[in-house]
């Protein structure tokens, strides 16, 4: 249990597993692609109708062109930004909000704890994607609305993890001594609880990025993401689904990209779990 009180000392001695190296690099590449991808390609919103539906490799188009003669690879690169924003930002927002709610609930008295947790139960009653769809559909399409709806959906599970971790610490000796030394609630939350909750939260949120990418792609697949001429991965799948019988690769390309991105963050989460020695949540 001393390991919990001094997380830094223990984790620094652990050797970093290969999965963290490989998938950490891949995840960084996805983030870089989101940051600089749109700068690498020109205007991808309009295409040359003479060049429509070229197969992969034809006339210098590595992944071919879509029904409007636009290069699929360029659109995938340009679409990285809204797709990754919709996957990353909700997890960051929900991580901060949910983390704060969870720690507060864990440190509160019986009534406060029950009130927060029963409220979170309500969000657990919805199938997550459907709640996100209901909110996004009401707010209207657009990346900001996707981010808002996904943030709302992700708060409850993150808060529950933070609460479980905080409850585990509650009766430990170092918490007792912090209280005895006269530390205030805020100071205990920040100095004693937060450093010990952090590893579990980081691991969980990393894996959650994978899920958020899938949800975000799903919302834009349903037409709730970026408005049509601009590319976004999920929306590209839906757009190119109509050519499934003649040019199946078209819809397959963005579908595989989302799959790989989601897999990357999930496996990075698994690697971090081993590295930071976090228990699997039940």
């Amino acid at each position, binding site marked *: 249990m001393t390991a919990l009180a001094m997380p830094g000392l223990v984790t620094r001695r652990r050797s970093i597993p290969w999965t963290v190296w490989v998938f950490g690099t891949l995840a960084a590449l996805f983030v870089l692609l989101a940051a600089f991808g749109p700068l690498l390609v020109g205007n991808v919103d309009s295409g040359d109708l003479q060049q429509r539906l070229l197969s992969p490799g034809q006339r210098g188009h590595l992944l071919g062109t879509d029904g409007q003669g636009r290069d699929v690879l360029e659109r995938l690169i340009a679409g990285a930004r809204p797709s990754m924003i919709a996957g990353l930002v909700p997890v960051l927002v929900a991580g901060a909000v949910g983390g704060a709610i969870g720690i507060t609930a864990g440190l509160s008295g019986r009534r406060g704890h029950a009130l927060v947790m*029963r*409220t979170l*139960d*309500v*969000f657990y*009653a*919805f*199938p*997550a*994607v*459907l*709640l996100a*769809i*209901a*909110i996004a*559909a*009401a*707010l*209207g399409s657009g990346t900001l609305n996707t981010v808002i709806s996904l943030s709302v959906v992700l708060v409850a599970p993150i808060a529950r993890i933070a609460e479980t971790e905080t409850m585990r610490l509650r009766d430990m000796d170092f918490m007792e001594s912090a209280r005895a030394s006269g530390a205030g609630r805020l100071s205990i939350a920040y100095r004693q609880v937060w450093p010990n909750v952090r590893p579990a939260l980081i691991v969980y949120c990393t894996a959650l990025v*994978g*899920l958020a990418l*899938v949800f975000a*792609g*799903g919302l834009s*697949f*349903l*037409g*709730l993401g970026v408005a049509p001429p601009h590319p976004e991965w*999920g929306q590209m*799948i839906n757009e190119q*689904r109509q050519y*499934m*019988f003649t040019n*199946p690769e078209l*819809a*397959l390309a963005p*579908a*595989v990209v*989302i*799959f790989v991105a*989601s*897999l990357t*963050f*999930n*496996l990075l989460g*698994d690697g971090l779990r081993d590295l930071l020695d976090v228990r*699997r949540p*039940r």
Partner: protein
Amino acid sequence: MTRFLLRRLLFVVPVLFGVSVIVFGTVKIIPGDPVALLAGPGASESAKDALRSRLGLDRALPIQYWHWLTSALRGDLGTSIAHQQPTRPLVLDAFDNTLILTLYATVLALVLGLTLGAVAALRPRGIAGRICSGITSIAVSAPQYSIALIFIIYLALRTGWFPVSGMHGVNGSGLGDLLWHGFLPALTAALVPAGVIGRIFRAALLDVLGMDFVEALRSRGFSDRRVLLHAVHNTLPSLLTMAGLQVGYLLGGVVFVETIFNWPGLGLLLFQSISSRDLPVIQAGVLISALAFVLINVLVDSAHALIDSRVRTA
């Protein structure tokens, strides 16, 4: 047992109250003035005010909520804008087909997940175990729409093994036809839950197999199969709870699966309603799904209590 069930049902009431508040809330966050939209651009202020009071939108929010809730409890879930008919029969008819798909997917997820998890736990260092463990890791990140496309292209279009879309063939009828048409959609929906169940089952089985009582059974000369049977029995509680939660993932995921496979369920209805901005249908659909999800978890908890007497008295 009856007392447990009653207490559990009582616990559901505040949750359902919260669910209704949130669904009502999604109506209220729609940007813009709904009255201006309904009345049209040329409407006078007095005409708008009349419409507002006819719709009850001039009252306080809690009163509006109360009216919405009482009519919802009477079965009136509003009128579909696109179909110009009450949403309830529309949503309930579609939900029947979704339940068929969800049930099919649950069965596939359990069979797949338990097999993968068992092999991974019993052969932790063997090749088969590693492959099964790897499949569960990949399966949990699989987006349904990606998998659906891959299945359609490689298992339906290229090979002709399965139909591309729909629920029944032109001349087909009966259970066999339904199972054949539903196989790819159900398998697509089942993949993530199968991965999650596989991981949980593997971890739980490894836990139990390391316990003293397993050693004791072995030393008393029990065969491997009987030892495994006792071990599996001990993993059931955690497995049940997890499987119940996965149904929520299935009910959400069907939106994508049904849209791509053209399965005439709630998911396809929601997809169509999004493009026509038919919000009453979306809200009714989400409400029904949440109700079903809550109900299923009550059933799961009851099953849990039946297996494990400690839960009943806790």
